[in-house]
């Protein structure tokens, strides 16, 4: 801690309190986030999220200058406004919710084509391999097309299709790689090759798994009618 920026008239006891309060705030935040991770009901999660906001107020208030006070006020207002907005969203969603199970990629069209039964595995393998070779956005689209072709052909041949519900999460995590590559490109230009490949393969995974979302999209589309 930089001591020389603190004015002389501040008692040493107050100065020594900053670090314990900072740790206290972080521990409160950790407890709140653990609670959010464990809890499954939406309304409880919303209430527990307020605990993270409380920890934010503790950390900001620990500084104790007028500038910190100026940060506390908007922080408090933003937390309250967000709680209100999210609870409104929650109410609106619960009023419109209608749950029913649907099959994978329901198709009103007859997709009985020869390509679906002759060599779909080989074609999708070639598409995925070529997509990985291309990398980047184009490669993601090609590889995703291969995955969709594979899934469709299995469905049409009557084989079981494994539906992974977390495909969207892969997309989000690989987007992370893209962002890290982007940051590294600016921060450490000497590692440009690493950041280029991070970005390329992050985008590949992201777009390829986005193609997997098409099945979910179709289910929604079909269920709406």
């Amino acid at each position, binding site marked *: 801690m930089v001591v020389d*920026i603190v004015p002389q008239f501040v008692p040493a006891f107050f100065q020594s309190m900053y670090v314990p309060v900072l740790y206290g*705030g972080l521990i409160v935040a950790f407890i709140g986030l653990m609670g959010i991770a464990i809890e499954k009901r939406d309304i409880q*999660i919303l209430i527990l999220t307020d605990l*993270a*906001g409380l920890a934010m107020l503790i950390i900001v208030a620990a500084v104790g200058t007028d500038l910190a006070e100026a940060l506390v006020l908007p922080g408090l207002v933003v937390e309250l406004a967000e709680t209100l907005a999210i609870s409104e969203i929650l109410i609106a969603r619960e009023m*419109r919710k209608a749950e029913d199970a649907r099959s994978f990629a329901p198709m009103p069209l007859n997709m009985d084509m020869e390509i679906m039964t002759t060599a779909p595995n080989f074609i999708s393998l070639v598409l995925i391999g070529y997509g990985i070779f291309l990398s980047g956005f184009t490669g993601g689209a090609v590889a995703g097309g291969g995955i969709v072709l594979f899934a469709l052909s299995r469905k049409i041949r009557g084989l079981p299709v494994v539906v992974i519900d977390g495909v969207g999460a892969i997309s989000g995590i690989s987007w992370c790689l893209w*962002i890290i590559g982007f940051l590294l490109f600016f921060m450490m230009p000497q590692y440009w090759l690493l950041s280029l490949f991070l970005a390329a393969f992050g985008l590949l995974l992201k777009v390829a798994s986005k193609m997997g979302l098409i099945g979910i999209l179709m289910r929604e589309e*079909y269920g709406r009618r």
Partner: protein
Amino acid sequence: MVIESLGGDLFGTIPLGDIVLYLNPLHLFLFVTILLFTVLIAVSRTETQIEALFGSLEENEVKVGKKEFKQRRFLAIICGIATAGAMITGDLFNFTLFMALIGIVNIGIVSAVKQVSVLDSAYQYGLIAMMCGLPLFGGAAIILAATGTLSLFELQTLPLNAMVVFGALMMLVGVAGESGIAPFYASKAEMFRTPGSPFILIIHLSSLFIIVRFVEILLILIPVI
């Protein structure tokens, strides 16, 4: 890294007591671009989505009502102005507040949607935005506690400080969560799947501009890289 080498020649500073604003070509360019987009959004009408229906030649028009349209336009303009403010500001304090404003306005833009899936992802995004208020404000408070100032113009002259690096990284997490990039993208992507395009797009545009600006702030705060 010095400010001059990051954003081009310094046009001048606007000293307002504690807050010292400064102008350079990068900031002015980002500022003017986002304002132009905001003007475009302010004068445009919302799109009408035409959805083709499977298995027939009919189509489905998805329109946005007048009231919802006005509310969204207002929030989109506020979001554009807040992003423009975050582009031009030379102060970490203002940047934090603009960031919090963008987060809450983004929730507001999608909160009026009537689709359950979109409301669901808006709820998830809102929770993340609320939780990320903690690292955003907490990081700013830690930087304030370690240096005694939040003006970027003064922060660039200070030597490297471990607490400042920690605060800057915390702020990175906060900015990522509030603007919905990186690991939180998966839930935000669902929010675009709704009619009313030009207003929805400002969410994406603002997060792109914010991340470019925050890379510059990171380079100012952490002088070794």
